[in-house]
């Protein structure tokens, strides 16, 4: 989730009083979102944190156990394994997706004005996650799938895309790259369009080549948008669940047992809601730190255009 940077400046006290009259309407406009935030985010989060300190099976009352859940997470080998495979997923998913989306966005920006092509790029994103997962699951089937039949036809060995421990998580990461590529491309493309045309004209007058333009103009001016894209996609990527739930269900041998799937399994499979809540709190902390670091490092709320 992206947080809009607040620009409260204490030095401009005089202006604040002039704006006070706008406070009431402002609050009114914020109210619906605030209610949603409180009901569907703040309250569940607070309750989740509380439950993480309890032994709770949903069917009888929660029992306070202090830090016991957190203490057991340290020695839980399945948890550590799930963190490793989650990181593996995030790394493959984000690196491939960001580079491909960037390339695609630049191509769209520089070389075509066709709405049809822009539309086609977005198409996979319009298909429901579960459908995408099932279609690829069938396409990549070892015996009957189109991909393996093609590999076989050109004399290559068949690959257990979803069934081989070595490939399962990579496959799932790439399936989601395919689905989210269009959306990420669109975000970057919007950022590209926000770069004023005159800087490109100036570069052209100076005789800069395509690569030089990209390196010295496009890339630096796109930084805030890229930062936003990275924060959103990394946080989303850590929460990979649906593709796993409808294909491998954490297998083979826990190779795709990502953290959210593990949390789900602990809660709704083992009825261990206390432990699952503790795992969720850990995940929330990890994501908060990652988002914060990304915002800082990439200076997401500053643009090189304002100088």
């Amino acid at each position: 989730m992206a947080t809009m940077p607040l620009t409260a400046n204490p030095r401009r006290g005089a202006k604040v009083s002039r704006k006070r009259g706008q406070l009431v309407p402002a609050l009114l406009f914020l109210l619906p979102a605030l209610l949603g935030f409180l009901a569907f985010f703040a309250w569940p989060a607070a309750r989740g944190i509380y439950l993480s300190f309890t032994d709770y099976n949903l069917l009888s009352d929660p029992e306070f156990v202090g830090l016991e859940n957190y203490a057991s997470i340290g020695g839980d080998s399945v948890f550590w394994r799930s963190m490793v495979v989650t990181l593996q997923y995030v790394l493959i998913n984000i690196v491939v997706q960001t580079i491909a989306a960037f390339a695609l966005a630049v191509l769209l920006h520089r070389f075509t004005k066709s709405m049809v092509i822009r539309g086609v790029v977005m198409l996979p994103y319009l298909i429901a996650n579960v459908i995408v997962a099932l279609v690829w699951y069938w396409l990549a089937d070892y015996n009957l799938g189109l991909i393996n039949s093609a590999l076989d036809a050109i004399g290559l060995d068949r690959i257990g895309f979803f069934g081989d421990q070595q490939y399962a998580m990579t496959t799932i990461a790439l399936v989601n790259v395919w689905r989210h590529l269009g959306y990420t491309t669109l975000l970057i493309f919007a950022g590209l369009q926000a770069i004023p045309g005159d800087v490109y004209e100036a570069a052209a007058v100076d005789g800069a080549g395509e690569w030089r333009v990209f390196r010295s103009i496009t890339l630096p001016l796109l930084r805030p948008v890229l930062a936003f894209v990275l924060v959103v996609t990394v946080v989303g990527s850590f929460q990979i669940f649906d593709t796993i739930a409808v294909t491998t269900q954490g297998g083979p041998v826990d190779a795709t047992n990502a953290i959210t799937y593990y949390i789900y399994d602990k809660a709704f499979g083992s009825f261990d809601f206390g432990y699952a809540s503790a795992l969720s709190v850990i995940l929330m902390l990890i994501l908060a730190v990652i988002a914060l670091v990304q915002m800082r490092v990439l200076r997401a709320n500053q643009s090189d255009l304002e100088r």
Partner: protein
Amino acid sequence: MKKSLATTATLAIAVGALAGCSGGGSDDGSSEGSGQGGDVTTISYGLWDSNQLPAYQQCADDFAAANPQYTVDIEQIGWDDYWSKITTGFVSGENYDVFTSHVAYYPEFQKNNQVLPLDEYIARDGLDMSIYQDGLVELWQDPDGVQYGLPKDFDTVSLFYNVQMTEEAGYSAEDLANLTWNPEDGGTYEEFIAHMTVDKNGVRGDEPGFDKDNVETYGLWMEGSGGADGQTQWTFLTASLGWEQTDGPWATSYRYDDPVFAETIDWWYSLVEKGYMPTFAAQEGISWADQLIAGKAAMVPNGSWMTGYVFGAASDTFTPAVAPTPVGPDGQSWSMMNGLADNISATTDNPDAAWEWVKYLGSAECQDVVAEAAVVFPAIKTSTDKAVVAFEAGGVDVTAFTGHVDDGTTVLFPITDNKSDVNSIMTPVMEAIMSGSAGTDTLADANANVNALFE
């Protein structure tokens, strides 16, 4: 039992199709009788299998006709969402009055006092519990022998195969009914599997020059590792060696460290090494039933609940049939047996009304209706026989499945506490073994971890 993807998908589609008609059924038909006071009590009932909905809707209509003071409102939700709905229903207090239950879930509900005991009702109404197939009643008792459900149906395991392939290879139905197995050389069961395996060049698995890395049709299909239960994978083999997961219902220890179990799994995995069965990586994906239908496998052991799906797919290239599981060293063909029952939610406002409906569901009147539908085997012995006839009328010989209850060659689905944790431990271990990345020597440690759950 792990539902196959195809089944789930089919169910999901069926849910959508049926959602439109399930609501309207209960509106009228309730107020026809002149019950004193005119109040009609509505009993809500949940079930997950859309294939069984028509039969149970019929039961509900018959029940309401005979008991005008009651009406039954059935809601059908696919397996994946069903259990979330039931669980959250307990928390909100708005659960179904009565719901179809599974032994993998009900121990948790029972432990938390979310389902009602039935003993007093059974005693009051003098129900004869011996009408049900042996073993089914015990599945629905807690460790103290308190009854929580009346058996409604049961399932067993047999071998689904493609007649066109076996006949071409020279096997008759009688040959298939008399296959033998042992863990040393696999017996005639392995000979059959080897002969039915065909590589890309048309060379069979028991012929010289067989290319095990390029198999076109596998003699036997692997449907996952079987995890902790091996319901359709290996329990029918281990049972013939006298091995079961536990000592019986509600046992507090498991036996995965027994050499007999390791020996069976070693033999089973040897089929992968010989190329007679797909590797673990190769079996993940499109369900076993579709692989069988597509001719990628000659035979697959699986449960009676898949009968409708498999026989519904008969075509020019696929003629389905069912054979009993192979005869083991003890001279018997074995199967795991599991069954469903109906539980009453502790949250119900009308336990007496709920009981009347449960009693009707567990009666021959309703189970005969279910038998007619020829979808599952009803739990009452006489109704089972009627279902066999109904299946036969549809051209499906299911005696391989029902033979097990006639012969008493069934082992019960292992029901214990901590079931889902047992699964969480055993599934990765079994997957590693069947992937070839670990040996059966890892079973001892796994068993220690499992048994630690009960300390």
